């Protein structure tokens, strides 16, 4: 019996093929849009996270406990050799690079500016940061002790060009002031005030010698296969690298403002998705109601012929399910297709300047099945449930009345 009703309701749905197709398409389009928007939103969030972590920060950083608060020179990463070895063998860590950080005075022939001296390891850095790509003029670090790269604003403030002499003066761990001479070898443009105006990049070995740090360094920045992993507090990574007086922090902690901003955006997007979902449901329910009310005549006949009210009601509900299912399938196909196509080529919004490097990389929509399954399932369910109302109405109709057809 049940099976027969299923087949019957299915045929009913297709009897008015045009209406079913139109509704299916319209609702399917709505669902596809929903899925696409989710994908787009995910892609844009990924994009913003990349814009935060790619240029310089990395996904996770390791420091000695207390370093980030006080920036004291002596607080170098504990057991550096061990940590680096551990990182090399860690399958979760895609790349990592050590850095030395120290306040210093940078003088040119004409000006004196306070900067953060950053010792960079030229071999491992390109795999982690965009410093090499950000160099406008000149060249990247090759290991020469006199090489120095400045942000373009800093170079302007100091009135220097490639090849000009610069002197870095800094206080070493022995609390003695040390000076070292450099020749400007590269000018970079990150689009970030902090990096372009207050940072000077030299070879890590040179910085270590100047500051009398030996092999010590202050920070290790690393890249994970997916920046989102940095939000996963269950990873063994945190414990492993937060040992022995060190502390490992993800970008969400290192840049709480960006993280907050992303949360805010997520909430906005959630609301938008809810609205979209509402529209989709609205559309399909409306279609459903219309179809039932239009068929009052034939439903009246069915009743007059002896079909039980309950059966009529059930049939209507089943038709609702079918309609929901068809629409969902169309929507899924369209949506996935759309995402699949655009995720290959990406959508370019032109130049987006966000918190740093002008990002002209396109956005790649990306769908998270873990979240996206809700939409189709809920659509079918809600629509099916919505079918109850017209179903009840149909079941209760007086056959004579409904057969008095009107134009």
């Amino acid at each position, binding site marked *: 019996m049940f099976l027969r009703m299923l087949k019957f309701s299915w045929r009913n749905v297709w009897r008015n093929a045009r209406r079913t197709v139109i509704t299916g398409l319209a609702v399917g389009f709505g669902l596809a849009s929903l899925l696409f928007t989710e994908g787009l939103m995910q892609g844009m969030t990924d994009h913003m996270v990349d814009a935060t972590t790619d240029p310089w920060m990395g996904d996770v950083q390791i420091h000695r406990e207390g370093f980030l608060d006080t920036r004291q020179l002596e607080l170098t990463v504990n057991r550096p050799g061990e940590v680096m070895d551990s990182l090399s063998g860690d399958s979760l860590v895609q790349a990592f690079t050590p850095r030395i950080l120290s306040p210093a005075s940078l003088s040119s022939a004409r000006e004196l500016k306070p900067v953060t001296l950053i010792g960079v390891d030229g071999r491992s850095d390109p795999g982690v940061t965009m410093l090499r790509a950000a160099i406008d003029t000149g060249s990247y670090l090759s290991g020469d002790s006199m090489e120095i790269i400045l942000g373009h604003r800093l170079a302007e403030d100091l009135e220097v060009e490639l090849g000009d002499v610069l002197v870095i003066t800094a206080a070493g761990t022995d609390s003695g002031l040390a000076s070292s001479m450099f020749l400007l070898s590269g000018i970079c443009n990150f689009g970030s005030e902090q990096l372009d105006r207050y940072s000077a990049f030299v070879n890590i070995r040179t910085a270590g010698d100047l500051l009398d740090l030996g092999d010590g360094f202050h920070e290790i920045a690393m890249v994970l296969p997916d920046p989102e992993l940095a939000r996963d507090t269950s990873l063994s990574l945190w414990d492993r690298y937060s040992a022995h007086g060190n502390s490992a922090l993800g970008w969400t902690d290192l840049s709480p403002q960006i993280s907050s901003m992303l949360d805010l955006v997520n909430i906005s997007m959630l609301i938008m998705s809810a609205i*979209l979902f509402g529209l989709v449901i609205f559309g399909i329910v409306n*279609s459903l109601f219309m179809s039932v009310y239009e068929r009052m005549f034939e439903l009246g006949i069915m009743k007059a012929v002896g079909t039980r009210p309950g059966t009529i009601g059930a049939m209507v509900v089943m038709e609702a399910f079918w309609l929901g299912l068809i629409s969902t399938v169309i929507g899924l196909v369209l949506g996935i297709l759309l995402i699949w196509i655009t995720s290959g080529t990406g959508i370019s919004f032109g130049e987006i300047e966000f918190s740093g490097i002008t990002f002209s990389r396109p956005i790649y929509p990306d769908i998270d099945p873990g979240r996206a399954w809700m939409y189709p399932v809920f659509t079918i369910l809600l629509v099916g449930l919505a079918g109850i109302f017209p179903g009840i109405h149909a079941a209760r109709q007086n056959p004579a009345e409904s057969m008095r057809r009107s134009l």
Partner: protein
Amino acid sequence: MLAKLAWRNVFRQKRRTVLTMLTMTGGFVLSSAAIGWMEGSYGSIIMFFTNSRTGQIQVHGSGYLDDPSIYNTVDDYMEIGSMIDSVPGVRTWAPRVYAGGLLAVRPRGSGPGGIFSNSAAASITAIDPFMEDRATEFSSQMEEGELPSSSAADSSYSAVGNIVLGRELATVLDASVGDSLVMLSQAADGGSADRKYLVTGIYSSGNPDLDRNSCYITLNDAQLLFALRGRVHEIAVMTDDLGDVDRLTREIAALLEGRDLGVDSWKTFAREFYNGMKADETQLKITIFIIVLVAAMGVLNTILMMVLERRREFGVMKALGTRPGFIVRMVVLEANIMGVISIIAGSVISTGLLLYLSSHGLVLDQPINYGGTVFREMVATVNAACYWVPALCVVLTASTVSIPPALKAAHTSAAKTLRTV
């Protein structure tokens, strides 16, 4: 005749009309809410950010933003301030003096004769505590202790002043509330500027890089110490209406013309933040576009169905001699009537919804800390775009979508259409 017929048709088939209009109204309200929400949430973020420290508009000496120098000041700041007050839309303003100097604290355990050997370079901001609090609610950023308040230092060069330190700066100096501190710097007349201070509070802006280098003292104290009588480096101007900022910037600039001053909005002096916001905005705008599109599809669906269901009716009309053109016009008119009614109803509903949302907002279950201010709720705004965008969408869709099927129906032979169940 056409109009009367169309009107009566609309109200004849109540159920059908109601369902169609429901979709249109629903689409309108949801699009409207989406737009209002987007504007509102961005407005919230921007207002929170600019209200926490920078203000929406700033006045400096000309060229100060590119080259901040202690010598580049806004003179007669009280006079300028009252001129700014006179511009409608300005909520309040706050003056600031900026300087750089050395702060030094005695290490713990050393007696009164000890050397102030914990020293660090710091950026010093001098504020009028009352005006600053009124402008930025600075007191809410205080973690411990109180805002720097007036002291003898306001009028005496050798008196002890009150100072508030950033959380990380207090850590670097190993200082706490109640400690003594010495400041050494250079005044604007080249002379030495040095004074002893009492740490009266510690604050946190949420940005450790900022807090590691900054401290606050009172304006009068700084003007005396740095030989800057009547002068300040910055006047931050606050307004409640974010959309008004561009106009206010222009008006204030015109008012202060000829005084060698620069007037800038947050879009200029907080450029990185502005760019970040713009990137987000693009993202949301696209989503709004999609929402409006989907709403349009919904309208399309219902209108289409409505027209297609009535083919028999059109067949009858044709059989009675009605010309196809008449039928088409009638259908389009019906669609438009429903559209307009839906828009009106939708406007009423969405106004109610948005007004509620803009005053109550959505309470977040996990407050978000951004730039030191804590977001507890997100609000929506009501503005023109909330109305005309959805309205346009509904009307345009309704009228255009109804045409093709009406045309088709109007031109099919009457006999054919009548032969349906």
